[in-house]
């Protein structure tokens, strides 16, 4: 018989805490909405036959959805930064910034194993691997730039005090047009990121059997005992305790 039945001892590890999972999905949905509405704002479709302007407001509504979602996106992001300080070892902000040599070494390993596939043995990492962490760090920078440019250009359209706090950034860039240009370019960063991100999570699930795909829903990953140990040894945080909620 060709069917393979193997028994291995797997442990559940609670990796992504509830706030992290909520953050992830709220972020994903809001970026999707922001990209779709943003794209429409930048490239509105041609309508050649229509009622007069008095009876229609669809472009205004698209913009409204963009701005409303922008607030959700922004405060959700702030929440995640906060959680980077109080969350568990996998959520810590220190994971995301490559301070240590070991992190850079891991980046090379990840490139060898997962990307160019020179090495066969899969790496075991329960949180983000170092390359992923750096990529997320870049997205965080993009989030910041997106918020600065977005609220900066929004300040011209709103009387509320909040967007007015961002006008300095538009000034720094030299005006609304460069700010808008940067805002538009960064959308493509998110699109490219999303393609790679979705593909790679599927890839990891496909070859590694830790349950990465479902982990962002339930929070658990599955690991053999020795995997778990290896992971904790290489962790950037000393004496990291596992927190559960």
């Amino acid at each position, binding site marked *: 018989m*060709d069917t*393979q039945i*193997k028994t291995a001892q797997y442990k559940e590890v609670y990796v992504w805490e509830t706030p992290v999972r909520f953050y992830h999905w709220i972020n994903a949905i809001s970026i999707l909405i922001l990209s779709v509405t943003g794209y429409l704002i*930048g*490239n*509105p*479709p*041609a*309508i*050649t036959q*229509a009622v*007069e*302007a*008095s*009876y*229609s*407001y*669809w*472009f*205004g509504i*698209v913009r409204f959805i963009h701005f409303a979602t922008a607030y959700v996106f922004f405060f959700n992001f702030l929440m995640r930064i906060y959680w980077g300080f109080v969350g568990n070892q996998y959520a810590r902000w220190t994971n995301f910034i490559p301070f240590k040599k070991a992190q850079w070494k891991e980046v090379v390993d990840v490139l060898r194993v997962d*990307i160019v*596939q020179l090495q*066969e043995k899969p790496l075991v990492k329960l949180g983000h691997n170092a390359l992923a962490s750096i990529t997320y760090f870049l997205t965080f920078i993009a989030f910041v730039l997106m918020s600065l440019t977005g609220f900066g*250009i929004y300040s*011209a*359209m709103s009387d509320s005090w909040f967007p007015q706090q961002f*006008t*300095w950034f538009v*000034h720094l860039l*030299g*005006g*609304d*047009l*460069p700010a*808008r*240009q940067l805002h*538009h*370019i960064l*959308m*493509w960063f998110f*699109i*490219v990121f999303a*393609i*790679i991100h979705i*593909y790679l999570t599927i*890839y990891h699930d*496909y*070859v590694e059997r830790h349950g990465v795909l479902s982990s962002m829903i339930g929070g658990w990953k599955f690991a053999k005992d020795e995997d778990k140990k290896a992971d904790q040894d290489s962790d950037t945080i000393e004496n990291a305790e596992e927190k559960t909620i």
Partner: protein
Amino acid sequence: MSRKKPTVYDEIRAQGYSRRDFLKFCGMMGAFLGLEASGITQMVKALETKPRLPLIWLHGQECTCCSESFIRSSHPIVADILLNKVSLDYTETLMAAAGHQAEAARQATMEKYKGEYLLLVEGSVPTKDDGVYCVIGGKTFENIVNEAAEGAKAVIAWGNCASSGCVQAANPNPTSATPIHKIVKGKPVINVQGCPPIAEVMAGVVVHLLTFDRLPQLDKHGRPKAFYSRRIHDTCYRRPNYDAGLFVESFDDDNARKGYCLYKMGCRGPVTYNSCGVIKWNNGVSFPIQSGHPCIGCSEANFWDNGPFYSHLPSFPGFGIEKNADDIGLALGAITATGIAAHAVATNIRKRRLIQSGRMKDKKQNSNT
């Protein structure tokens, strides 16, 4: 000499304008400046009691469209009195004197009214190669500006050239054209932006300085808020078409005839701060958008480099003029997809091997037991 210096009002009357004309002028200026009724009274009083403000108007690297705009102001008092006949002590293009006489007049004004006169600069300052690209009467423009700024009460930078360098500062800026606020140190500089600025805006700024003796509120780019706090887009009469998503697709289509929004034709209204939609041009007759042309954003820094004018997105830096962010983004997306396809193939080969080696192990285990 005990004789009182004639006030602005005296000079206006001497030119043959009635008091009624004068009050109308004040009312108009007050409205443009957004003053309340008491502010207009203050203005009337100021013009009645204060002597005229001495002005020195310098021309550097420019095309004189700012002067042209000013003398076409909708109210005769602006051009006739404030500029031509009364106030201007020195301006190359409009004064009768020429050559040494003119230079002498400038020197005389600078000495006589030290600390009192207003310096108005039209044009940018080339700083490259010791400033040889703009020399007037044997002096570089940089020197002239600095000298004149020294005794000035305040400096007004007319237009985009003086405020941000305009076309001569466009990439690659061969003469290092520099705006006035980067040349003059230690004096307040008001940037009256636009290529050219609207005449009423120019007059409004001068009248404000004369009336209140202090700078108008400025935005972060040094532009008077009274005229530059709102975008063209916020005051544009085509805005309902924008909100309804009704856009001109090409200059000769039916939508253009219907007067739909020019956003997709590259209109810079959404990113440009100016009063064109309110005050308009040529005595309030029209403004670019009203005549069917998108705004090119002439009151913003670097507007020449943010082209092409007729597309919504500027070209992407470093990729030639017809490539914008969307072209680059799409190309990147395609490259990513290709990479992923290759990777997926490699992964499947690897996974197959993994499964097969699993089978081998299983077989071995089976034979062992």
